[in-house]
């Protein structure tokens, strides 16, 4: 007997009767949740705000803080698409949510991501990323977010399912703002001979979107930020220590 033809396979698949469990009463569950949240004052966001929704409550807080930061920022460090501000005394409250790589965009392949962002996505040696996302809505130009799951040698970053998250953006846009509580939290270093910054303390991040800043979100991983000569800004969040992170960054190809 020969292999099934595509047509035979398609018809057989269409005829498969999957044994789905009974569909739960989602309408009641969802409306009950929404009504409860509404009674606490949560409503659908105004158009133009937010990359994602459940953190919407924080937008007003974020904007207020940003306004305050604009006045009070004591020091600013910019590198490509990212800016770091020192705001003395800022300590991320545990109530501030973390952000998952998957919240930042939609899944794609590396090739699809490259087609969207218009630059080559550099990958570190070793296993391919477990997830690739195209980050849309960030300051007008999409970026790429690559994420790797934890391994025995690289545990998950706090608040995420990942051990390594590598974001890349065109340096032509302002993508994110980080605030740290002390300039001693920022260590200047180099990646491939170019200036880089290393942060290994919890800090806050806002993402600049087409519609304004979104955040704050709490960052618990170690972060390395650098820019390449080609004008691509990288942000690596990892559970690796500084030396390991820099070594990995320098091996991107």
């Amino acid at each position, binding site marked *: *007997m*020969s*292999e*099934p033809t*595509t047509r*035979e*396979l*398609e*018809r*057989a*698949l*269409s*005829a*498969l*009767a*999957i*044994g*789905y*469990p009974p*569909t*739960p*009463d*989602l*309408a*009641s*569950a*969802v*409306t009950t*949740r*929404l*009504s409860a949240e*509404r009674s606490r004052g*949560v*409503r*659908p*966001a*105004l*158009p*133009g*705000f*937010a990359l*994602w*929704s*459940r953190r*919407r409550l924080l937008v007003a807080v974020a904007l207020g803080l940003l306004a305050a930061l604009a006045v009070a920022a004591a020091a600013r460090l910019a590198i490509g698409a990212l800016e770091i501000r020192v705001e003395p005394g800022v300590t991320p409250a545990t109530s501030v949510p973390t952000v*998952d790589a*998957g919240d930042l965009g*939609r*899944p*794609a392949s590396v090739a*699809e991501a490259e087609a969207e962002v218009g630059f080559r996505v550099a990958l570190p040696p070793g296993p391919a990323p*477990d*997830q690739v996302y*195209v980050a849309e809505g960030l300051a007008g130009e999409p970026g790429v977010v690559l994420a790797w*799951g934890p391994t025995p040698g690289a545990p998950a970053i706090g608040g995420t*399912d990942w051990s390594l998250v590598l974001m890349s953006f065109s340096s032509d846009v302002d993508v994110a703002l980080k605030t740290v509580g002390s300039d001693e939290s920022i260590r200047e270093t180099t990646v491939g001979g170019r200036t880089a910054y290393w942060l290994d303390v919890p800090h806050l991040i806002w993402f600049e979107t087409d519609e304004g800043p979104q955040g704050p979100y709490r960052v618990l991983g170690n972060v390395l930020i650098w820019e390449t000569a080609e004008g691509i800004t990288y942000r690596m969040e990892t559970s690796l220590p500084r030396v390991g992170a820099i070594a990995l960054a320098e091996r991107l190809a």
Partner: protein
Amino acid sequence: MEGRPLQDPELIELARDGDVRAYGELVERYREVAFRTAYLITRSAADADEAAQDAFVKAYYALHRFRTQEPFRPWLLRIVSNEARNRVRSARRRERLALRLAEGGPSGDADPSPEAAAARRETQETLLTALSDLREDDRMVIAYRYFLDLSEAETAEVLGVRPGTVKSRLSRALGRLRERLPAGLTPTEPEVADV
């Protein structure tokens, strides 16, 4: 106009204004396909329930980003599939159940003999096992097209790719499925009556 069921764009407009009941209508309209999408990814009824529920809540707060001239279903299912995938990732070590066939045999069966029914069931079990062994992106492009009956355009929207990419992904997924089928197995399908 009294009694006319509201169309999706009308319900969405109401929901955007904070009308939770209107949104409940939308949930009711799409709860089955949402739950099934989540189930096909998580292969757990409990996880699928949570994922679908969270996705509906998330979609409610994201309604302002939805373009009302576009179909709601693929936009929603994209959120559902993201939620379901997040659950699978966070439960990576957990054993996931295999998909199974519905009790009572394949749909559309025109009263076959017991032997024919048994043979068909066995073939379908084999097909389902082979499908369960596929990696998620292969499994889901097949599931969207043949189990959930989404169009190519809808599948593209859910996957966040171009329609042409759906074609090529589907072709590759079917090829990999075929490789997993035992030699000589010819999937039989019931005769479907013209409607």
